[in-house]
């Protein structure tokens, strides 16, 4: 315990690049960085994966339908395409949801698809899609129907947006219907899908309902929280306990109605910067709602996030209440941490997942005394690594250029300036200038230690090498990596779906994580991998000859 391993990570790049074809190695070299927070290097991110390399990444459809729209419960999400895409995104992301009553709509356990056949490819699938929408309405009578395009849809020229408009008309505007051009081949990863999803949320849902009865003076949106394993439930609990109204969550445990009212909140908090920062920006531009990057992953991070809320609203009663909640919760959390610490302290971890989690979870690991040796995103951009300050310097390549950008302007009628210089000043006074991160995000590299390896779009080969060379005590990635890593005797924590654990957000979540990591790093069975007859030191049994 407590014996922090000293690991020299500098040799990795050379060790690994040699193996690749020359051109491939050259490309990968730019994505493998020895971090130096004081002199932040440039990392290559959000560029095409080299064919054949065995990537963790998925596609645009997955980012749009799977990640962003998946957690919404009262939209009938129809996949327009052959059956596979709809099938694979059916219940596979652990998006939990809880309706207020048994009568409320919940379509999450359903998979809807136009199940395109060859004739639809040859003759076009629009009519089938229309009929599918009619049938969906007859059977499910939803408030909203969303249509997701799969690869062949764009190629054969089906126009899902036109179909959406036509069907909306056919239903006399009684159902909100909209489409997503999220064909799998667009962009370079799920990231493009998030962006496409964000745009359509903005165009079709956000701002639709001004008719709101506030439940609290303190009204916020939470963006980039998808309620994996119940994370959103825990965050909702904290907000409720603090007396802050959560107007909308994008999109964990969300409803159409909450999206439609998001513009009435006074503050936006952004969890997963990568998947949703577009919406945060649009909300500010149109309606004047300021946004802050926060994280509820980690007990201290959660406390910090709530303090940001307190500082922003700058209401003594609220501040007192939030501080009381923090004190109360942290006391319990600390006790749980002390139970886990003897098992976890001094251990090492590697995190390769998603567009934010590989960063956020470093906080939780720090609370456990676990050093993150190496980390990287599956679909992050440079700003997620280096901070938003690099955005102006990011070169837009062909793959990104194809993703729809929408122009957002101030909504003159509904815009309300909230982030006055005075508000900002008070926040900076309360929290310290560095902590405010107004409209900003400092990125992963600012946190991960000097010398740590930062690798974008890790390949399977690189992953094996990392483990072989540095054998971390725990590896964090996704389902595709899990069992390969565990075959090597290293426990893998899925940070996409938490295996079947969670919630890990907030205070309760931190305790769950402490327990689960303590459990994983003390898994007895990994000590038994070698059979007695494969070990050198076979202990002689005593028997009576």
């Amino acid at each position, binding site marked *: 315990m407590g014996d922090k391993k000293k690991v020299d990570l500098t040799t990795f790049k050379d060790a690994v690049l040699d193996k*690749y*074809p020359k051109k*491939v190695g050259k490309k990968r070299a730019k994505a493998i960085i020895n971090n130096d927070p004081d002199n932040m290097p440039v990392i290559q991110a959000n560029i*095409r994966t*080299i*064919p*054949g*390399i*065995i990537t*963790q*990444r*998925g*596609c*645009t*459809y997955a980012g749009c339908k799977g990640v962003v729209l998946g957690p919404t419960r009262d939209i009938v999400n129809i996949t327009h395409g052959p*059956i*596979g*895409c709809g*099938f*694979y*995104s059916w219940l*596979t992301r652990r998006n939990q949801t809880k309706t207020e009553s*048994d009568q409320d709509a919940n*379509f999450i*356990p*359903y*998979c*809807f*698809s*136009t*199940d395109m*056949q060859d004739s*639809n*490819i040859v003759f076009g699938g629009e009519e089938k899609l229309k*009929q*599918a929408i009619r*049938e969906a309405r007859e*059977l*499910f009578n939803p408030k909203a129907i969303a249509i997701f395009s799969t*690869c062949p849809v*764009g*190629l054969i020229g089906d126009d899902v947006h036109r179909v959406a408009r036509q069907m909306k008309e056919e239903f006399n505007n009684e159902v909100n219907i909209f489409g997503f051009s999220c*064909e*799998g*081949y*667009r*962009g*370079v990863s799920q990231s493009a899908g998030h962006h496409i999803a964000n745009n359509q949320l903005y165009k079709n849902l956000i701002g639709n309902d001004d008719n709101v009865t506030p439940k609290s003076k303190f009204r916020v949106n939470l963006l980039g929280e998808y309620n994996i394993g119940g994370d959103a439930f825990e965050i909702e609990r904290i907000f409720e306990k603090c007396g802050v109204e959560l107007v909308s969550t994008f999109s964990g445990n969300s409803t159409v109605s909450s999206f439609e009212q998001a513009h009435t909140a006074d503050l936006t908090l952004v969890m997963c910067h990568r998947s949703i920062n577009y919406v945060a920006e649009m909300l500010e531009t149109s309606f004047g709602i300021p946004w802050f990057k926060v994280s509820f992953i980690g007990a201290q991070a959660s406390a910090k996030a709530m303090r940001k809320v307190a500082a922003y609203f700058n209401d003594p009663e609220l501040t007192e209440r939030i501080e009381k909640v923090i004190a109360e919760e942290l006391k319990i959390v600390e006790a749980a941490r002390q139970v886990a610490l003897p098992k976890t302290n001094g251990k090492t971890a590697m995190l390769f997942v998603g567009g934010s989690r590989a960063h956020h979870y470093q906080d939780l690991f720090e609370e456990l005394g676990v050093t993150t040796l190496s980390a990287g995103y599956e679909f992050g951009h440079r700003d997620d690594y280096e901070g938003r300050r690099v955005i102006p310097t990011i070169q837009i390549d*062909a*793959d990104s250029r*194809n993703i729809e950008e929408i122009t957002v302007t101030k909504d003159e009628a509904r815009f309300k300036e909230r982030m006055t210089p005075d508000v900002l000043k008070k926040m900076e006074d309360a929290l310290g200038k560095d902590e405010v991160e107004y409209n900003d995000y400092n990125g992963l590299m600012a946190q991960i230690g000097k010398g740590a390896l930062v690798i974008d779009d890790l*390949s399977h*080969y690189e992953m094996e090498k990392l483990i072989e060379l540095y054998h971390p005590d725990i590896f964090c990635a996704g389902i*595709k990596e899990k*069992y*390969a890593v565990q*075959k*090597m*005797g290293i426990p893998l924590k899925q940070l996409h779906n938490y295996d079947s654990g969670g919630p890990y957000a907030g205070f309760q979540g931190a305790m769950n994580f402490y327990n689960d990591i303590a459990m994983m790093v003390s898994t007895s069975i990994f000590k038994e*991998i070698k059979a007695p007859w494969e070990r050198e030191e076979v202990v002689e049994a005593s028997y009576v000859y």
Partner: protein
Amino acid sequence: MLLRHTTPKEIDRQALTINPAKTCQPIGAMYAALGLHGCLPHSHGSQGCCSYHRSALTRHFKEPVMAATSSFSEGSSVFGGSANLVQAIDTIFTVYNPDIIAAHTTCLSETIGDDMTQIVSKAHEDGVVPEGKHVIYCNTPSYVGTHVTGYANQVTAFVKFFSKATPKKRNVVNLVAGWMEPADMREIKRMANVLEARTIMFPDMSDVLDAPLDGKHHMYPKGGTTIPDMVATGDSKFSIGLGKYTTEDACILLDNKCKVKFEVVDIPIGLKATDRFITSLSRHANVPVPDAITDERGRLIDFIADNHGHFYGKRVALWGDPDTLIPLCEFLVSMDMRPVYIVTGTPGKPFDERMAAILKDIPEVKFMSGERADMFRMHQWIKQEGVDLLIGNTYGKYIARDENTPFVRLGFPIADRAGHNFNPKTGYVGATNLAIDILNALLDHRDRTCAEEKFEFQL
């Protein structure tokens, strides 16, 4: 209610599939490719396909599933995926060094019309396929057929690329394995061994997707049909295809190409299908059936007889693949159970014909295959009149909980339990396992739901 929007009222759906009992071709091709030793499957399409298939297979097997992708971009979709595939082949052989790359297409590459033969030729011309290494391929457009079709196409590709007839036939029987669990393949090989039949099984996922944890990740686990064996299938005396939907094409091609005669039987699930398999193998391998096998059969019969009262008359709803459902329903009938609702998303007449024959004494039966023969429909039937048991993949758990109905997991994918790749469901031993699972599900339910005064020590 989890599926609270499902009501008994059916409408005449023409377009919308809800809760499918199928998925798309490429995943079948990927799964089958893992049954060749030293083979890396390759998905020629956008990244998502490969990622989705690997994830789905991994969730089911809780095993590493290695596969590569052509990582199509918008550009490749416009200009064709040739460059991507050639580069992929280069990268794969350099970095991952498989003996074989088994590429399959996707709806994307099919829609843009990529010509696999031409692209692979180009790869050879470009010198990115090392000496002694193989790139095989098959066409698996997602909008034709289902995952079952993709499996069949991949297996057929094995024959196309490897099987070779030399002048000398060998007294060997090919066992062309349909879509089943590694444990099922292992069990069929074990039976063949007990019969002392000389066989070659392909594909063979045992020792691939049920690999030991030994401290290393083996990109190419020790299982899988080897190339020499695959080549030698052309010299075998006979082929037995296990499952019409998944193996008949391969059998026919092997006959056409190498003059290996064949018979297609059902996957040996249950008593009678195993009887037919053993009879066929015994005849074509020219070996008698040893007592050890007859005893296994007798133990199955014993088990069913002993517990018959619990099985008799129980109404069962099933969903899955035709090659599984056909012998499975036959088995249930042989136990005097009543399969009443059966759906498969995989289209094809043989299913309808076999079901009609097997279930001829169950007038209330409803079965359906192909488009919109989905779990939503089956659930609507259940809402109309309930069943005593559900058998199918994990998606059934939502129905099971809503309807408080016992549930035996069988098929693909099973994402919420483990062990299905350990205990076979094929052969007499597998049928006994299946009967045990069914019995446990029924009795657990009885014990849980009966009145206290009806709670029993002996059942």
